[in-house]
């Protein structure tokens, strides 16, 4: 069920350029009149509507990253932590993506996987994909 609440668009998306945000804002007012099915099928509307992911999502991503990179439990990770700055190489990143797919039961496309460089971006993408899944 599409749960984008048009009233509380708290964008915390450093990676999103301002043009995207303005496009989303324009569409937000008409969003509720678009059926979920139609929205999904239109690739051009599949903008990364990345509202700030829920804190619990960010936490789950952090836990997976800590485990994959074997960071100590008290390593301070922020949502903005970059995988590469934490010592992740390409194999680590792919393992993280796979762990996220399993944890959240989603499927990440290559192009999207490449664009994930921080914990926040991963969490945002996860929520985006979870939201788009057909209603159970």
């Amino acid at each position, binding site marked *: 069920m599409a749960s984008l609440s048009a009233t509380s668009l708290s964008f915390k998306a450093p990676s999103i350029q301002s043009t995207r945000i303005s496009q989303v804002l324009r569409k937000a007012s008409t969003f509720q009149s678009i059926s979920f099915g139609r929205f999904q099928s239109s690739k051009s509307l599949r903008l990364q509507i990345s509202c700030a992911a829920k804190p619990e999502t960010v936490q789950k991503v952090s836990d997976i990253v800590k485990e994959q990179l074997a960071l100590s439990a008290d390593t301070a990770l922020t949502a903005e932590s970059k995988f590469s700055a*934490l010592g992740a190489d390409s194999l680590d990143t792919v393992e993280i993506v*796979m762990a996220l797919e399993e944890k959240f039961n989603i499927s990440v496309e*290559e192009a999207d996987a490449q664009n994930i460089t921080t914990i926040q971006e991963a969490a945002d993408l996860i929520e985006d994909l979870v939201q788009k899944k057909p209603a159970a």
Partner: protein
Amino acid sequence: MRISVMSQMQRSFSIDLPSLIPLQLPSRRHVPHPTFWLIGFEAYLLSQTEKDGVDQMRGDELKKNALLARTLVRTTVARYQTNKEVDPRSLMFKKNVYGKPEVDWQNCKNCNHQPLHFNISHTDSLIACGVTVHVPVGIDVEDKERKIKHDVLAFAKRFYSADEVNFLATIPDPEAQRKEFIKLWTLKEAYVKALGKGFSAAPFNTFTIQSIPGTEEGYSLCKTSEVTADPLEETKKCNGEWKFAPLELADSHYAAVCIEDDQANEGAPMRVIVRKTIPFVEDQLISERIFL
């Protein structure tokens, strides 16, 4: 901490092709404590951008690694200037449109423009820099003992091509299977890095790297057709445009080098020279081999 710096230093390699003439390294300077000198000198070599990059790394080990990596790139590329010695500090770098780092010859003062290409890869304990002339190069290194958190076959099914999955599935021993998985990873990663267009330009499941029958270390690249859903009907286009050299370094790492076959050199074997290097301190030839 000092000891670990030195051991990291001892594990850095440079890999290059025969037409490059290595220059004499600058003479060793007398310093009371080599570790301090090396760290100070390395920072001295780096540009502000590189230093910022080092600072971004979380934790001392990672910072040191980043510092060593940039030092290795600068000193290695600087060595392969013909005609005169180039100060590694004067090299400038830029990224291609896809983000692949390359030397910016135009903005380098006192450089001769050389058709040099480089690529770098590192793990916790080893940094490798590969340099070639005329042709793009990609290099990847992985710790042999690296544990894969997921089931190897499940991982391969998700990311590798069908043929590669089949190959891995025929290996009965899980440990041997894990090792082959890693070797294949380095080969595939080296190709994507040589291509220089980012991971999404060549998703891992769109190409197969397989050993050439009858050779021990020859590998070839085949592109798989994405259109057919039926893996049995997968059409493959194999070409000799990309050459691979799988290596083992320091008994601890698998590495792969991939170069694009120069039109002029078409079909000619690739000669890979491996050196073990501590920038400004030591240089040791490890091996020189031909890969078909």
